[in-house]
């Protein structure tokens, strides 16, 4: 080794911590506004609340380019197969935030036409309550999701491919 090489800086970390650090700080949300919650989601992305502080400002119009599904609004039974399909089109690893009371459990619509909770068709990581949730509420949910991602063990999926993925 040369002297110059010895002066190169380095740091030690665990692979899991490094990978989850990278994943949680560059979530790419899928812009999926289904109802009025979308307005608060848009406000969260705008200058005042500034979702780019969390590296999440890149709302994608295609599920294939996103890894965070914010289900913002009422999911009707007619829309449910579409939501399921969009989720299936997102590449792994991916996360789902159910935003608002409608997405959590049907909200004020206990009716024939509304899906009573998006967790009946796709796995949800974080539920953000409110009607609609404030931008602060959504950001709190997203920070909760970041904490959850920080506790993942992505290397386990490489070392033990048959082990169940830790969510």
């Amino acid at each position: 080794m040369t002297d110059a090489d010895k002066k190169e800086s380095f740091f030690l970390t665990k692979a899991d911590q490094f990978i989850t650090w990278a994943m949680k700080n560059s979530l790419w949300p899928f812009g999926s506004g289904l109802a009025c919650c979308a307005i608060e989601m848009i406000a969260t992305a705008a200058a005042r609340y500034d979702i780019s502080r969390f590296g999440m400002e890149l709302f994608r119009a295609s599920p294939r380019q996103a890894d965070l599904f914010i289900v913002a609004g009422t999911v009707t039974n007619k829309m449910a197969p579409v939501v399921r399909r969009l989720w299936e089109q997102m590449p792994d690893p991916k996360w789902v935030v159910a935003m608002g009371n409608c997405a959590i459990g049907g909200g004020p619509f206990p009716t024939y036409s509304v899906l009573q909770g998006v967790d009946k068709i796709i796995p949800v990581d974080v539920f953000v309550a409110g009607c609609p949730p404030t931008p602060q509420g959504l950001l709190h949910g997203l920070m909760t999701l970041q904490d959850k991602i920080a506790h993942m063990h992505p290397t386990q999926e490489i070392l033990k491919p048959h082990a169940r993925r830790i969510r």
Partner: protein
Amino acid sequence: MPAASADDRRLQDVAESLRGRFGDAVVETFLGKDGLIVRLRPARLREALTFLKENQGFNALQDIIALDNMKRGPAGLGPAGPRFEVLYQLYRFPEGLRLRLSVEAAEGEELDSAQPVYKSADWAEREAYDMFGIRFAGHPDLRRIYLPDDFEGFPLRKDFPLEGTKRGL
């Protein structure tokens, strides 16, 4: 009592010509606060719509409204009658005259489609079919419009459970 306005006089003329043309098929006509209301026997529905469009200048069908009057009758609040009532909201442009045509239909009874007369009846009648199960004879494509194609039942009927037959799933 205030003098009848020019609009009211025009609508009275329409009512007169409807009675002259359709006689007993016109059950009742009266002026409501938002225009003329005509109750008609369903047998001459399409004929009356054609007459109103082509002779009386009602050039727009704004909406078709269906009602389920299941709760009336001996056990309910009002007089007995056919279960469904269908309202055709007509508009005469540019005078701004409104006419509401009301026909009644028993359960399972078909009404003549207004689609051959007014193209805007196409989706409106599909909606009435989707929500109430009222069928329209002569409609070119009578299938559900809002609800999924495999939906069972007609949710705006009074005997349909609010939360649906599958509890919203």
